[in-house]
């Protein structure tokens, strides 16, 4: 029982950064923008969060500025793809390469340092409950924020007028433009939000989960977040599920390793990446169902000719 709780809690911790980044990308893709630069935005968020927390001693400042740094990266992508009409795939890759380089440059003097981890919230009675306590009521604030944001994104997309406009812009940008919706502005806002969320995901890694900075510490999580969006077929609730599934694979691998199974650790470390491929195949499999659910204008450049 205790082991099961341990595994579940570990899964939640591993899933949280993925959930942040995936939610942000989900909103951007719903607006029709394919930003492959999640990894770059995330790693810049991670280094910013770490530096600010280390210098100011305030986790809140670190996390807020990480989101801000992610927003700037998202806006850079928006400027390139929406104003300068650059190819989205290539720009996303440029954003990742640039982000990895910039974060290494920024964090040069901080390698190997650490900050105090974000404290878990301890509730009077609830946190002491046998199983539910550690599972639900004893986490640091960013965990709860990720759950709250999932609900907010779902509410925004499906229950607000702005969310409806955003989906319309992603589904058919020419029609949305003809109706008079500001396609470019909606998309800029969506990629900025995506950047902020990726920044939060990065900050979660560097100031909450493992409170230290090391180069390239996102280790491909930005790319896995992209896969989760596809897995979720662009729906927030399923993004939550996807993030926890991938978090679970990571944790099971760690526990197998910890249990002393005689297999080189590298093979176990491959599991999350292999699982991603398997899941991608399963959802795109046969009927191409997921492909059909992709936003109609995803990845296409919009240029208003009138």
């Amino acid at each position, binding site marked *: 029982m205790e082991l099961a709780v341990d595994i579940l809690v570990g899964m939640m911790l591993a899933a949280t950064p993925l959930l942040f980044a995936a939610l942000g990308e989900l909103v951007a893709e719903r607006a029709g923008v394919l930003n492959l630069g999640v990894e770059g935005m995330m790693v810049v968020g991670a280094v910013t969060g770490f530096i600010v927390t280390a210098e100011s001693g305030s986790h809140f400042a670190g996390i807020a500025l990480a989101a801000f740094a992610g927003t700037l990266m998202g806006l850079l992508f928006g400027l390139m793809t929406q104003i300068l009409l650059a190819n989205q795939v290539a720009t996303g890759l440029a954003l990742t390469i640039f982000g990895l380089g910039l974060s290494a440059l920024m964090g040069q003097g901080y390698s190997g340092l650490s900050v105090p981890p974000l404290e878990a919230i301890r509730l009077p009675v609830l946190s002491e409950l046998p199983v539910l306590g550690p599972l639900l009521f004893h986490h640091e604030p960013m965990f709860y924020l990720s759950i709250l944001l999932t609900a907010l994104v779902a509410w925004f997309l499906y229950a607000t007028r702005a969310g409806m406009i955003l989906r319309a812009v992603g589904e058919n940008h020419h029609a949305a433009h003809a109706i008079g919706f500001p396609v470019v502005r909606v998309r800029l806002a969506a990629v900025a939000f995506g950047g902020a969320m990726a920044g939060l995901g990065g900050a979660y890694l560097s100031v909450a989960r493992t409170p230290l900075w090391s180069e390239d510490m996102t280790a491909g999580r930005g790319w896995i977040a992209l896969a989760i969006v596809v897995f979720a077929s662009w729906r927030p609730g399923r993004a939550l599920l996807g993030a926890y599934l991938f978090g679970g694979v990571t944790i099971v691998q760690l526990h197998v390793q910890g249990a002393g199974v005689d297999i080189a650790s590298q*093979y176990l470390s491959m599991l999350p990446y292999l699982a991603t*491929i398997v899941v991608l195949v399963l959802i795109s499999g046969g009927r191409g169902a997921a492909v059909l659910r992709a936003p109609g204008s995803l990845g296409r450049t919009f240029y208003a000719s009138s």
Partner: protein
Amino acid sequence: MIRLERRPQPSRAVVWMTPVLAVLLTVAAGMALFAIMGVDPVRAVGIIFLSPFSDAYSLSELIVKATPLILIGVGLSLGFRAGVWNIGAEGQFVIGALTGGAVALAFYDISGVWLLPLMSLAAVAGGMAWAAVPAFLRTRFGTNEILVSLMLTYVAILLLSAMVTGPLRDPDGFNFPESRIFHDSALMPQLFEQGRANAGFLVALAAAATGWILLGRHVVGFQIRLMGQSPRAARFAGFREKRIIWFCLMVSGGLAGLAGMFEAAGPVEQLVPALPAGYGFTAIIVAFLGRLNPIGIVLAGFVIAVTYIGGEAAQIQMQLPAAVTRVFQGMLLFFLLGMDLLAGFRFRLRLPRRANVVETP
């Protein structure tokens, strides 16, 4: 009011001018960045962009860095033209090094002129096998090749690490995670007396020439270009989309694998976990900087090689972090992509129309 107007035809002059402008803008932005960091911008940029040309050794190092970038870049450019996004060349590079290197280690006690060709074959096969996974999954299930090829890159790097700490580890290496140093006949022939430039560079040039002929003169190249520009038209014309996807991924995977073997049997001389140095990703920039044209890619390979060698020099002479190289490469791609706008569009100055505004005296 200034507004954009689509050009009837993309301007060829602008298409070829933008890489030059992008390099100049990158230098300017790099100087600004150094100024912010409190580093003497003139000296830093001088070291990065001029020192690679200062002596014979640096020049041969330029060839060492340009070789894998050109080989991989040429392969990728075919796919990018057709809208096939192989982003996992880094993984194919690693597998090529691994399969080619495994052959070198398997025949460690035997030497012969056949060894390098056999290693090359193994490397090409390895790179192709790794690229075959995204090719198969995309053509069979419609799975996104970007994500699949990328995930396989992480798997490949872990596999290399598992191999050099396991079966391929140097038996006399005091448990260090590295293979034996390859035997002489398993090492690439040197191009010059001095430096580390090897015959792989000639193969890279040959690949670029072949790619150029294929794209410009051969029906396969025409199909690739048409599929990228208008997939619907290509389908109407009866091109088999799946075959083009397979072709592009096999060529780029094979060339990336070959580049990996050249790297292991060239400058590195063994298999080490640090073998993947990001060439597979950087080659994406090279492909774009070279305008997806094999001849342009040769030039672009050298431009990016300058940022590597110059970055190393800046690291030694000014204690600048190695990450400077990646920042420069990212900026270069940004400026280039941003300026592509100028090829397809032109700016027009238009006065606001006043005809339908009723002016009251």
